[in-house]
């Protein structure tokens, strides 16, 4: 799988497409290529065991004799911005990247798609110099490229915006930017440059503001501007929209498109397929560490891409009409101080969930989701009557007393909150199951029963693990999430509160989890689903509300809500101006 160079001096690049999905029109891709002055491409299929039997590159169809000749006559072929050739990187017990090859051209938005654990982050970490490949080569503009560390990568023109920001809350925007620079200019000059860049790219940002006061979207802009100041040729973005409102996403996309017109290439990691379809020129799909397909997202349906990612078709959740029953959970006027300096205070939150109903709560990250879950779980206590379960005031009860009454919860953070990383699945099953599953007698643990409960979760929720004695941290994100959700669902809750139930989970596992929630509601449980994934909320909720800075919007029926309205609810209906200007 090394790049083949034929007599004409053309780099042969591999492109495999799932058989049956190749319905693209050659002309369009061809145009794309010509305008970008990328090298012509012929197709080779050398590695056995790849997806499908044939490799089809529509570009190959263009390579008629005439075309080939005309290209050959050109004195210089500009090499692609970055070409990656059979990069392999193994970790103990898993080959994260197995001979992955791809090519990024100037000015394109290239999507990197794949399930959790497919090897996306390993690949970008290698590009960004955080991880060294075991074998394989990278070429930047045709020259060998092997960054020893991120510093070297940045110097070569590769920048990256991480999913989790590395910013200091207590410092200003400009100070944060200066911290990342090898030789920062004077703060005043830097502020001016930040202002200039933010104006040029339509990213409103005041360099003098303290980062702790910024929204997630604004924090992301700090990271992006930090990258843009280095004048990158390739910008890697890891799930950039997970923390943004729809309006903020539009702003971001506008900026990214502007960057591409200036020739900057963007490697865009996401699992939001619709987003990729609207933004990206090409997509490389990884599965279990191998690249299984390359496609043009605009011409491929989200469902097809999803199936390529998973390698199988999966069922979308069935939404059965349910008749809501009596009110099971009622929150009235719940206010709570922020747990820490940078936490969010809850302000006058009122909601009610009926049996058989799913209430979806949206909102950008940091709007009070964690705090709301903590208040409902009993980790933080409120006035007794602020929270009622089947009419009983439970605001002062602890987590276990609430569990006994039938209120179960699953927090967002899997490792360290919903599950103890170093403990076995059996011990983790005991964590919340002790009360309702009767795993204790006089305080002594019935390990046999606990193990059986863990096994039941593993079987019923298809958790891929050698067994219940495995440490929680050894599971992949999706599998652990299935375990965490399954642990609560199997305890037959009367009310289930989940926060980000499918965060960072692959499409198949997400579908399974959503189906489990729908089934639970159909069985008469009341479900409160807090999520930052709007598609998810629209898919499963009966009613929808949004958190903004610790306040809950009005709750409205989910049916018929459009993106615009949702965006306004998320931006805080009390202050729609702010959103419009953002």
């Amino acid at each position, binding site marked *: 799988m090394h790049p083949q160079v034929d007599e004409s001096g053309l780099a042969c690049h591999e492109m495999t497409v799932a058989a049956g999905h190749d319905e693209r029109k050659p002309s369009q891709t061809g145009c794309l290529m010509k305008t970008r002055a990328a090298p012509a491409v012929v197709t080779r299929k050398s590695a056995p065991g790849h997806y499908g039997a044939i490799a089809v590159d529509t570009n190959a169809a263009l390579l008629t004799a005439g075309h080939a000749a005309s290209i050959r006559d050109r004195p210089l072929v500009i090499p692609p911005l970055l070409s990656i050739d059979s990069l392999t990187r193994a*970790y*103990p*017990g898993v080959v994260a990247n197995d001979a992955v090859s791809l090519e990024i051209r100037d000015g394109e938005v290239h999507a990197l798609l794949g399930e959790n654990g497919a090897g996306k982050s390993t690949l970008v970490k290698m590009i960004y110099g955080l991880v*060294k*490949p*075991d074998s394989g080569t990278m070429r930047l503009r045709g020259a*060998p490229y*092997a960054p020893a560390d991120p510093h070297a990568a940045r110097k070569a023109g590769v920048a990256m915006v991480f999913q989790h920001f590395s910013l200091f809350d207590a410092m200003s925007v400009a100070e944060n930017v200066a911290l990342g620079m090898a030789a920062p200019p004077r703060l005043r000059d830097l502020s001016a440059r930040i202002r200039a860049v933010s104006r040029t790219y339509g990213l409103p940002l005041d360099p003098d503001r303290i980062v702790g006061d910024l929204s997630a979207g604004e924090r992301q802009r700090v990271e992006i501007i930090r990258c843009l100041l280095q004048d990158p040729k390739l910008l890697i973005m890891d799930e950039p929209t997970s923390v943004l409102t729809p309006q903020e996403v539009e702003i971001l996309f506008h900026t990214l498109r502007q960057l591409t017109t200036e020739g900057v290439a963007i490697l865009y990691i996401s699992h939001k397929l619709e987003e990729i379809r609207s933004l990206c020129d090409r997509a490389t799909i990884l599965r279990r560490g191998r690249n299984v397909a390359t496609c043009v997202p605009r011409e491929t349906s989200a469902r097809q891409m999803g199936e390529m990612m998973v390698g199988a078709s999966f069922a979308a959740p069935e939404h059965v009409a349910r008749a809501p029953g009596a009110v099971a959970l009622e929150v009235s006027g719940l206010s709570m101080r922020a747990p820490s300096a940078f936490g969010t205070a809850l302000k006058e939150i009122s909601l009610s969930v009926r049996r058989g109903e799913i209430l979806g709560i949206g909102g950008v990250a940091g709007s009070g989701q964690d705090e709301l879950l903590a208040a409902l*779980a*009993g*980790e933080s206590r409120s006035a007794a009557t602020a929270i009622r379960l089947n009419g009983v005031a439970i605001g002062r009860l*602890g*987590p*276990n*007393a609430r*569990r006994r009454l039938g209120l179960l*919860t699953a*927090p967002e*953070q899997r490792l*360290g*909150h*919903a*599950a*103890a*990383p*170093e*403990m076995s699945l059996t*011990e983790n099953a*005991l*964590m*919340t199951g*002790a009360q309702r599953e009767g795993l*204790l007698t006089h*305080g*002594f*643990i019935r*390990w046999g029963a606990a193990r059986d409960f863990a096994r039941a979760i593993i079987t019923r929720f298809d958790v891929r693990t050698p067994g219940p004695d*495995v*440490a929680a*941290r*050894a599971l992949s994100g999706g599998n652990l999430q299935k375990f965490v959700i399954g642990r609560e669902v199997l305890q037959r809750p009367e009310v289930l509160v989940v926060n980000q139930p499918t965060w960072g989970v692959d499409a198949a596992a997400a579908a399974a989890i959503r189906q489990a929630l729908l089934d639970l509601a159909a069985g008469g449980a009341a479900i409160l689903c807090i999520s930052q994934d709007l598609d998810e909320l629209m898919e499963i909720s009966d009613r929808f509300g949004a958190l903004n800075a610790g306040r809950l919007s009005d709750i409205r029926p989910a049916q018929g809500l459009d993106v615009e309205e949702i965006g306004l609810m998320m931006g805080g209906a009390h202050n729609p101006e702010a959103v419009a200007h953002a």
Partner: protein
Amino acid sequence: MLKLETRPQPSRLWTYVTPLLAVVITMLAGAALFAALGKDPVAAIATIFWQPLFGEFAHYYRPQLLIKGAPLVLIAIGLSLGFRAGIWNIGAEGQYIMGALSGAGVALALYPMESVLIFPAMVLAGALGGWIWAMIPAVLKLRFGTNEILVSLMLVYVAEQLLAAMALGPMKNPEGRGFPGSRNLRDYDSAHNAELISGTGMHWGVVAATIAVILAYVLLTRHSLGYQIRLTGQAPRAARFAGVRTARMVLICLGSAGALAGLAGMFEVSGPAGQVSIDFNVGYGFTAIIVAFLGRLHPVGILLAGLLMALTYIGGEIAQSNLGLPAAAIQVFQGMLLFFLLAVDVLTNYRIRVATREVA
């Protein structure tokens, strides 16, 4: 170039191998240290590890193993509960002194009355004394958020001053011809923590240590309280989610550590030491920290580690008298044990990969 790689799971094998490896490395480094001091390294190591068990005077030293091991194990068991929960009681030495003062105080107050109830009362008083001393950092931590490491450690020095004051003042033997130190409890039948089987070193402290090991084992492996302690240490946020009350954990962990250290002090003052004196404490409370970690915070491991550490105490004394090694060298030797244990501990969670320089 060496690289550390995270293991997917902590290695079971290395969990057990690292303490042994640490002992071996300590022996090697200790040998180098003794050689640098101009002593025959092999003889020094043999004196420390071999003489007490199989030497000429082993019949005298072997009982010492239990006498020195019992307080170490007793204290370390208590400490291990806190360490497991992420509560760092460094002041066991002070709790040990306070237990001894309380237990001895009861006996000295009742002298010369004889009753079978006196010794049990001393046991209770000893545990209570240590418990109260440990409650000070616990309550301060819960009320004011103070750091239990600092408070418990500083209370050691307070306890030492109190010990000196007692030995020179209220508890001083009125028939001691002005010498500092209390009456010798060995001469007071009702208060004497005598050998249960003569010539074995087996006293009530050994019994208590054994019971503590068994109870701690059951607590940590079978009981929900032990589970909560482990959960608190490993994932504090998950513990709160699971309904564990952190304040309760602080009180239980510091309290039990204090009570066990107090017991250890009381058994010591009424038996092997015999009296309250200025130099009553010899650092068991600090050495027990090493014992707790050397034993992987596991009750059975602590039992073994306690015996090993007792061996270095006894062997160290022999080496001092026979080879003229300075006492400080022995303390360095013991300290190295913890140092190397922590150093090789990294192998439990990481594996070493010899990375060849990657070709670009």
